[in-house]
């Protein structure tokens, strides 16, 4: 990748960092999404669906 453009990973990394403080999204959902991104678990649906299930059960 050339210098002037960010990689896909960098773009997503910036996004999820911003999402952490996005007031338009529910706080626990934001935290969960950021954690999944950090753990590299957002490339397939299994982990995300399971995490959403658990989040609903906690409530």
């Amino acid at each position, binding site marked *: 990748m050339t210098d002037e453009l960010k990689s*896909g990973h960098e773009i*997503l990394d910036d996004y999820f960092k911003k999402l952490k403080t996005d007031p338009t999204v529910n706080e626990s959902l934001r935290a969960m999404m950021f954690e999944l991104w950090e753990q590299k678990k957002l490339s397939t*649906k299994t982990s995300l*669906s399971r995490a959403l299930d658990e989040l609903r059960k906690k409530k």
Partner: protein
Amino acid sequence: MTKPDVKIKKLTLSYFRGAKGPIDLDLGPDCKSAAIFGHNGEGKSSFAQAVEWFLREKVDVLSGEGVDKKDVVNLGSKDTDETSVGVVFNNKNLNAVKAYNKATDKIKCNNSSSEFIEYIDSKACYDRIYLNHHSILWFLLQLKGQKRVEIAKIIGYEDIVAVRGTIASALRDLEKSSELSDMRLRISNNDGLMTREVYGEAVTDTPKLLEKSALFLKTLGLSDPLKTLEDLEKLITKAINYLPSEERAKKRLTLESIKTKVVNFKLVVDKIKPLKSWEEKYNALVVDKQTISKLTLSDFLKSAEKIVTDDKNLNSCPLCEQEIKDRDKFLKQIIDRYKKYVELRTQLSDLGTELVIIKEDIIKIEKEFSETITAYKENKIAYDEKLADDFINLLLSIRTHLSKQFDLREAIAVDNVKIEQSLVDIKKLFATTKVSIQSEIDRLAVTDDEKKKQEAFQKLIRGKDLVLANISYRKQVKTYEEQIAGMRIIDAQILALQNSSLKEVLNVLSADINKFFCFLNQKDKVKNVRLELKGEEGIEFNLDFYDYAASPPKKYLSESQQNSLGIALFLAAVKKFNKVNKFFILDDVLISFDRNYRMRLLELLETEFSDYQIILLTHEIYWYQIIRRKFPQWVLKEIYWSFDNGIQFKDEHPDWIENLGSKHKKGEKIGNELRIGMEGLLKELCINLEVRLPYRAGDENERRTIGELFPYLTYTLQSKKSPIKDDAHYKALEVSNFIVTCSSHDNPDLDSSADLGDTIEKLKKFRSLFLCSKMESVKKSLKIPGKDKISCKCGELAIDWKE
């Protein structure tokens, strides 16, 4: 971010695809570019596939039905031969040999350093390094959605596409969740039940539930404070004591059941009625005791009948041995007696069957009666016990008498009067007790007040369950809806991010694609080529075709224009997005390219990719000759292949004319190659000097012969007053036998024409009139200012040229 800088010094193939023993493509310590010529099927692509396999451990074309990983192995190799690809890079830390183990179907690598692993797994895998004629058009023919996916791969945005795909898919699952729909349905049903059966309206929260429950509790006579759900639970427990006794209800149900039995007993008793008629029939049958006693003779008579019938000479009775006077009369007597006994036995048998039913009915009456009497005793219902006992005994004695008399074939004497009287007495007993039972049932009945309380209690419990269930469902639905709303925001944000990022990248990429495409298509009025987002999920090429907007490109572009668009995309992606590799491979990408395109592609590579290591593979001898002349500093190889020896390089001189001279000295046939080389040289000169030739369409333009090109070149030199046409070297070639002989493409006798060695020498001298020592041709476009001369690019050679 580091700039790509990885190049290849040496590539070694062993028993890989077309390669048998180890074969090295040595690109030198300075990682030269290379051009490899080989006819179709000579194994050129094995080099490209070797690089692909080394970097990705797979070969794209070796996938699909009937093809597997093992197909990288050379067909002529033995089991003990190891299939491998070794690469020496300009960074020695990346040097490695990857070998395929046929037995385990595994690939092993001798470099396990973290630098190498990172190079392979995190960097090289994203680079565009290989373009062949199959893949040039592949991208252009994809749908816009797939183009987006492919562009994302090219620019390293797979992460964004994958994450967005995951989020969109999880969101769809949430929105279509069966659990969510089920809960919404339950809420709706419960609201309906509350309205219809409990409160007259749907209660949705705890305060309202408590308020409504307080009203029911008041009906039950409870006015205790009700502020929480715990209060409600306690009051419900307390309210149970305010309900009609459960024991009372149970007893009432028992008495109702006994009453039903008493009512139904009449129907049961009726079953005893057939006894009297049966008794009459039976007694009539057994009255003839003598006949009954001889019933056993029927079988005996049957045997006698058979003996008499079979033995025509029999003259005495087989039973009593008396003389038979009239045989027919005797036989008739036997048969008549036999028939009488059989009929009697049948009648007795039928009566026996009926008796079984009668006895079963009596047993049923006994059972029903006993159960009723037992229930009377248990529920302390007064009745005439003696009457009941007599009835039971009577039934028992009838059953016993019937069985005994029937077995003995004796007459039956049932006291029917007594039975009738007994039944009348029992009916009276039931009628009396039925009144007292009904009176007790009435006494135990629930009052209106109790009914109201019971109803209030039922509604209290039912309402509480429905409201609490709905509160729980609503909470879960709300959680779902919050998640859906949040996920929708995230999905939309990532989609916007994806599209804005893509747009930015597409603009950068499009600038180069347009530049390269226009370079390759200088005379076509196709411009402003760019990749643009289409809708939310797609990408498509847009361009101006003679000022008309054209999208997709296949709508207006010719096949060669589409090919050049595919090459432009590949090269732009290489330039903008390759992370580590500073090399790429073009494998036979010249399908349907005419000479002008080919020259421009080389010029494009020279202009824009001079710092890249390029490996060109081609089966086009013309193009290969041009490459040889244009890039003499490259590694230039000709290959050939045989099943026994695999791919092999031909020994050759970098200069094609010198190379042909060497071949000629070895006794190889060079006539055809010499013609092709000569044609290539003349075509190059015609382009560079802008020689005007009669118009020819398409491929016909490519098929011009030496005999056609030479006169027009001469005419142009003459018109520009260039003395070269009069040069002895020019004239020597012009009039040589070879030129005359190869004026046609279809000439099989080139090798026998004149002395080819002499022609080669003449050709070298002829070439030196137009090409400098660096093999740069003089060009009409390189006019020397202020002089009637044109020169080569470096200025070493100039010729007279008067416009």
